[in-house]
Each structure stands twice: as structure tokens, then as C-alpha cells.
């Protein structure tokens, strides 16, 4: 099955797209503020991160937080609190800026000067698939040496580019790579 999956889950298989699992793992590795934005503490931490320097302010504006400085000051002082759509904007802007700031260091650790990082591919869950349609899909590992395209797509939040970059890597698994387009988990560390 060397191609992309046509209709995933038609027979009951469960899993997530490999690229999605990679993005999730990269987010975990990037870390960040754990307290949710809906609490005062989490909101203030994010606002401080986004407004500490002029550079950070510009990055936040570019990431979609287009409110006036006056509003920001009011939020920071506690006089006003942001509306629900603005909370979402703060969260997305924080994610984007954080990814952008971390990407350089993450990339260095993943590429490891060309030695790359070992990636584990945990196959999709077939427990709900009728027996005759189940296939033997084993646990595989892969050493990914070129993370540049993956990390760039993840930083920009471009899901299609991330998927393409990830597919470029998993074709190295051989003719079976299509079985690993959807997985339960992609494990790697940086």
C-alpha cells in the first residue's frame, strides 16, 4: 500500500495523521505556560510574554493580536478583561510567538549536527476493525535527519506543508509507508 490513504476509518481503524502527532509532540517539547488563558494568572503570563519588548509586540501584532496599546495596558492593569474572542486571539498569538522563538533551538537539537533523531511510529489502532480486514502493521522506528522543513511548517502553522514534509520523511520506511500515514502516536525527544 504505497499511496496515501483514501478514506481513513472506513472499516473502523482509529488514529491521527502522523503530521498531526508530530505537531503535537513538537508543541509538548516547546513547552510554555501551562495555566489556561481563562485564569487571571495564565492571561497575565501570556500578556507579559507578548508585550515585554518592542520585538515581541511586533510579533504579537503579526500573529493576529491587533488591539491598541491602550487596551493592552488596561488588560495588564486589570481594569478591563478581554472578551472571549480576544482571549482566543491572545492564546493563538502566544502559541505562534512561542513556536517562533523556540524553533531555532528545537531544530538544532533535532538535527543534532546531522545525526538526526530516532522517531518511533506506533501503528494505528485496529481493535474495532472486522477480523478479515485487519492487517499486520508493526511498530517501526526511523531516524529523521532533516527536520528543517518539518519545523518550518510547524512554526508557520501550515498543516498542509507539515503533512508534505512529514510524508517526505516517512517514505524512507519503504513500500509500506502508506500504513504509517495514520498512527496512534509518534514518539521522539529533543
Amino acid at each position: 500500500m504505497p499511496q496515501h490513504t483514501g478514506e481513513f476509518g472506513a472499516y473502523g481503524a482509529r488514529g491521527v495523521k502522523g503530521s498531526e502527532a508530530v505537531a503535537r509532540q513538537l508543541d509538548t517539547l516547546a513547552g510554555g505556560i501551562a495555566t489556561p488563558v481563562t485564569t487571571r494568572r495564565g492571561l497575565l503570563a501570556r500578556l507579559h510574554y507578548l508585550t515585554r519588548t518592542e520585538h515581541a509586540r511586533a510579533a504579537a501584532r503579526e500573529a493576529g493580536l491587533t488591539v491598541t496599546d491602550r487596551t493592552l495596558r488596561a488588560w495588564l492593569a486589570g481594569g478591563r478583561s478581554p472578551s472571549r474572542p480576544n482571549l482566543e486571539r491572545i492564546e493563538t498569538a502566544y502559541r505562534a510567538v512561542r513556536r517562533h522563538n523556540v524553533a531555532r533551538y528545537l531544530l538544532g537539537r533535532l538535527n543534532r549536527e546531522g545525526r538526526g533523531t530516532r522517531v518511533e511510529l506506533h501503528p494505528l489502532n485496529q481493535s474495532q476493525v472486522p477480523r478479515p480486514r485487519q492487517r499486520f502493521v508493526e511498530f517501526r522506528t526511523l531516524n529523521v535527519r532533516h527536520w528543517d522543513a518539518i519545523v518550518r511548517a510547524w512554526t508557520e502553522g501550515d498543516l498542509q506543508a507539515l503533512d508534505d514534509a512529514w510524508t517526505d520523511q516517512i517514505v524512507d520506511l519503504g513500500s509500506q509507508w502508506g500504513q504509517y500515514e495514520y498512527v496512534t502516536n509518534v514518539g521522539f525527544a529533543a
Partner: protein
Amino acid sequence: MTDFEAIDALLAGAREEVPLPPPGERRSLREELNLSQAQVAQALGVGPSTVGGWEAGRDPSGEVRDKYAYFLEGARTKLAERATARPAGHEPPTAEDEEGGPQASPHDGDDVEALHREQPCVLCGRPARHQVAGFPQHLDPRECGTARTGESDARTGSESVGTVRVVPAGRRVRTADESPDPIREAVAAALAAHFGDVEAATAALVARAIPDAMALLDGTRRGGRYDIVAHPWIPDVLRKQTARGSDRIWEARPKWARPELPTGRHQVTALDINGAYLSALKTHLPIGQLEHSSGFDHDRRRAGVHLITPPAWEHDAVLPNPLGNRDEPGPLWVTEPTLRLLLRLSGPKYALCDPPEIHESFTSGATENLLEKFRVALKEARERAIAEGDEVTVEYVKAMYSKFVSTMGESNYNRELYRPDWMHLIRSQAFANLWMKAYKAHEEGLVVVRAMGTDELHVLGEWRRVFPEGRGVSEVKVKDTYTVGCDTDPVAADEHGG
């Protein structure tokens, strides 16, 4: 008829195993030469515990058996020489003559010597027990198959008469003693880098213990049957609920003190179990990703974490609860070693409690051997270092296994392995091992006073007949002794006075 030739060659090659003296004599031979098990083990290329096993009655086989027989034979001759050199009527302990031994040659007049170990005959290539003027050969022409197997010398492809053990290395082979010992090399390199400054070298080695342990683990898993799955999907019960919080697994750490002692003055000994986490690396570990199941009995071929309702414990006055001191009632998540301990104690042999009730489980196919080579490598390095008095290696090995266990979960200090389930299982195994030691003490008539932490057991009574004292992993050492109680009852004070 190549088949028959092959069979003939096989029969010619097969030879009977070298006879060994009985186990008790093996030990006395070694001890009379003032050699330690570790020294002998190092010379033979095996672990000290293996030599201990041979002296306790196990028999080696194959190549090692020849080497061991050679050692014993050599030890016997050496002792016999010593005994004859001594003037007085000192009966040598190994005077009884064995058939085929060095003194039993019928051709003593010639330049004939008997060999301790069979060596290939220069004429036919088959093992011979004698040498003439330095050339190993058969004395009886009927034994020597020169005419039939004359081409065997060409087959060996080398002129050397002895054999060396070789192991495969990549596409080539190399001799076995060349194979690297990463622990020894690391210690030697650190000592050289710090110009023999022991403290600085120890600090440097401890600082790099985690990556070194991971490298050692990779090395010991090479060619293994199972891959180490380092980043599986982790169920929510094993995830930390907050950044600084803990997950929902109960590791059953014992923290128990006996509620009351008999009146009088007692001498309590606090015993420390050596290398508790090192021994606990031998436990049933789940290999792959944990899978959920509910409403099933316990499957011995799987391991993981289980939601159970624990049985009531009625022996709290004399023995700790195998679940530790849990105040909260109701079901709880326990690990495989705790569950196996409870199942064992509920069985007919112990009958100490009811069986636990299993509600749901996250398990995977399990093996006890996943970390076995890793554990044995560390244990042997530790034993060797203790035998040689090498405290740097002892500290280094200790840092390796303890940090390996404590960082194999969600730790930022070790990102190569993300197995919180293994971490919990190994810790629980250490606690279960401590519980079994407490039970053993109780069964042997000692009074267990406290069981706490990973490796601490306080007892009253003559504990040396129950636990051997020492620094090995199967031995205990004394941490502290103290007296408790007051002299109201002189009879009791006399009883426990020693």
C-alpha cells in the same frame, strides 16, 4: 557419501566433558590459594556469581568448563607442590590421584609431560592429553587418526595450537577479551582526566551517569528479541495531573512501624538492603504500548497498572500492609509487582488476605528479561569494584542505576526514555522485595519493628542467621543499632540484651 563423512567428523569432534572435582573441593582449592571469586571470575571471563554457583553445585559446560577445569587442575598441582615443599607431615588436601592427572603418565622416563587441558595433536589435530618435547600428541597410535584426518591442519588455517575465544563483531570476528567494557573504560578515562583525583573523577562520572546508562542500555539490547519502546502512548492515569503534581499510581511504598513491643529493653538493628533498585530492575515490564482491558482476570504474561479494590489487612500488629500506609479507602491504581504480591499472599501457601478485586487494567505483553543484561552488567561491575575496593566505580554504578530509574519517566534530565509505567513498576518491585524480606524475618522468628522507604528494615533478635551481612546485592548491611524501652522487667532485658 558425504553424509557419512559428516557424521564421522561429528563423532570425531565430539568428546566427553572434562571431569570436575566435587563442589566443596572447588571452593577449598580456590580459598587455599587465597583467591577471591571475583579474581577467578575475571580470569575465566565470567561473573563472580557464576563462580559462586559452580562452587555451590552448578556445573559449567563448553569452553568455560575446560577453562575452569584447567584452573582447578592448576590449583591442585600448585597446592601439591607447596605441600611437598613443606618438610613436616602436612597432608596435602588434594593428594588423591585422579586418572589422567599430571602424575599418572605411564611414560615418565621419556620427555613426556601430561597436559592439564587437552590440546590438539600436532599429527592428527584431535585433542591429546600428553606432549612429547613440547609437542602435544597422542601416545597410542590407535588414538591418533593421522592417516584419515591428515588434512585437518590445513582446515584450521593457522599454526597456533591453542584456541582463543572469538565473538562476532560486525562482519568480522574479534577475540572475546577485546570486547569493550564501557564502565571500566569510563572510570579509567575519568581518573586519567582528573590526574587520579578520586573525588573529582567521581563527581564527573556521576554527572554523566544518565547518558552513560542509556548508552549501556542500548549496548545490552543489541541483538535482543524486543526493541525498547521509548515513547509509547501513555494513558491518563500515568500522566501528571499538574506540572508539579503526581499521577494516580500508588506505588505501595512501605512506611510502617510496629504499634507495640513487649515490655523491657530491646536492641533494635536497622538493616539496609544493598542495591534495592538494582535488584528491582528484574521485574515483569510491559514491552509495548499499554492496552486497556476491564473485567478480566489477571494474565501472568502481561504487566502494567491495575485498578483494584485491595483486601483488608489484619496483620498490621506484626507485619506491614503490602499496600503501604494508605489512609484513603476504596479502589486505587496499583502496579504489577504490588498486584502480584497481593495475589501471592492471598494464595494457599500464604493465606494472609483475600484476593484483590481487579476492575480495569492497562497492560502490555511483559518480560522479565528486558533490563536483565543491563542489570547483570551493573551488578557485576559493582561486585568487581567492591572486591577490588574501587569506590569510584561503586559510586558511578550506583548513580547509573538510581538515576536511570528516577528519570525514566517524564523527566527533563532523560528525554530518551519516556516510560513512567516502568518507573512505577521498578519502584514497586523494590518495595515488594522489601516486604518479602520483612516477611522472611517474621517467619524466621525475628521481630520486625519498622519497614520504611525502599531499603530499610528494623528488627529485633539474632538477624545474622536470617540475612547474610555484606555489601553484595543479596546481603544486608547494618545502618544503625539503638535500644528502645525501659528496664522495668529485668527478665525481658536479659533476653534481648545481646
